[in-house]
């Protein structure tokens, strides 16, 4: 993977490193929250490695801790993770074959997909995808285990405003796409739909309901290169 730094350049690598740091910090709070909710350490540890999708893991922990059925919690988590289907469709061939394909599929997440799509050509898309994907594969479980070990010590993440980092990271990453006026309009409509449905839809579904906003692009003239 030594070619990743040559392919990507320093600025993109720094952005990926900072994103992984943010993932690590969110992982800390995840591990601490899981332990504080009464789960043994292996639950956030195993989940963070095998599921590797933060929002669905938070949701699973939350539903089970509130007394929900773990299988129902898993189904809710799968709905949250349904967004990985269009991610897989939107990505070019970045994973390769054999074990690379398996590992590359597993490290598909919000951050690695956005970094890949933001790159101008296939070699750089591939390098960004793997750098960010592997970084998250290390930082998310690492943060979760450390957070679970520290336990109550990092309970007060809100005092440092760390909960604002996750939406800020995603927003900064999609900003290049939002400069397209039609994409921006659809994104804003989707955000409004998600917010309007949050009070009454089960967690995770508002983000899927936002997909209705893609219909705004249905009449867009085709000007794709």
């Amino acid at each position, binding site marked *: 993977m030594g070619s990743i730094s040559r392919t990507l350049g320093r600025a993109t690598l720094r952005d990926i490193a900072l994103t992984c740091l943010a993932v690590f910090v969110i992982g800390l709070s995840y591990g601490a929250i899981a332990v504080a909710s009464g789960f043994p350490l292996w639950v956030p540890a195993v989940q963070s490695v095998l599921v590797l999708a933060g929002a669905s893991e938070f949701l699973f922990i939350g539903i089970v801790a509130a007394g929900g059925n*773990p299988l129902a919690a898993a189904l809710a988590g799968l709905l949250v993770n349904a967004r990985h289907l269009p991610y897989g469709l939107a990505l070019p061939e970045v994973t390769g074959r054999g074990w690379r394909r398996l590992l590359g599929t597993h490290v598909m997440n919000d951050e690695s997909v956005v970094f890949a799509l933001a790159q101008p050509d296939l070699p750089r898309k591939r390098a960004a995808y793997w750098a960010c994907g592997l970084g998250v594969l290390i930082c998310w479980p690492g943060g979760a285990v450390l957070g679970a070990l520290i336990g109550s010590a990092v309970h007060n993440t809100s005092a440092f405003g760390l909960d604002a980092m996750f939406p800020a990271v995603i927003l*900064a990453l999609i900003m290049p796409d939002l400069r397209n006026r039609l994409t921006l309009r659809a994104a804003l409509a989707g955000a409004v739909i998600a917010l309007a449905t949050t009070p009454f839809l089960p967690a995770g579904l508002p983000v899927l309901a936002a997909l209705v906003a893609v219909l705004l692009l249905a009449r867009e003239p085709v000007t794709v290169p």
Partner: protein
Amino acid sequence: MKDTTLVVAGIATLAAGTFAIRLSGQALRARITFPPRARRLVEAAAVVMLAALVATTALTQGHGFAGLARPAGVLVAGVLAWRRAPFVVVIIAAAAVTALLRLAGLS
């Protein structure tokens, strides 16, 4: 934790199902020749869901409002990102603004 077996089954379901979702998108892409228009819509779909994720994680907590401090921090980050401020500045500003507002007594 009430029933370890059920929790293990839940985690296994979530992990296997998530992997299947991640794999199926790629498998479909290899089999279907995607016209540029469909490709554009699918890429837009990912951006729309990510924007919805930004809105809901910035503004809501559970089924209710998250308070003012967090969305204010994310708003400042959004303005900075729009004006092409460095990524580092954007993310640190989000946390700093939110932390300072909470220090000032705003939730």
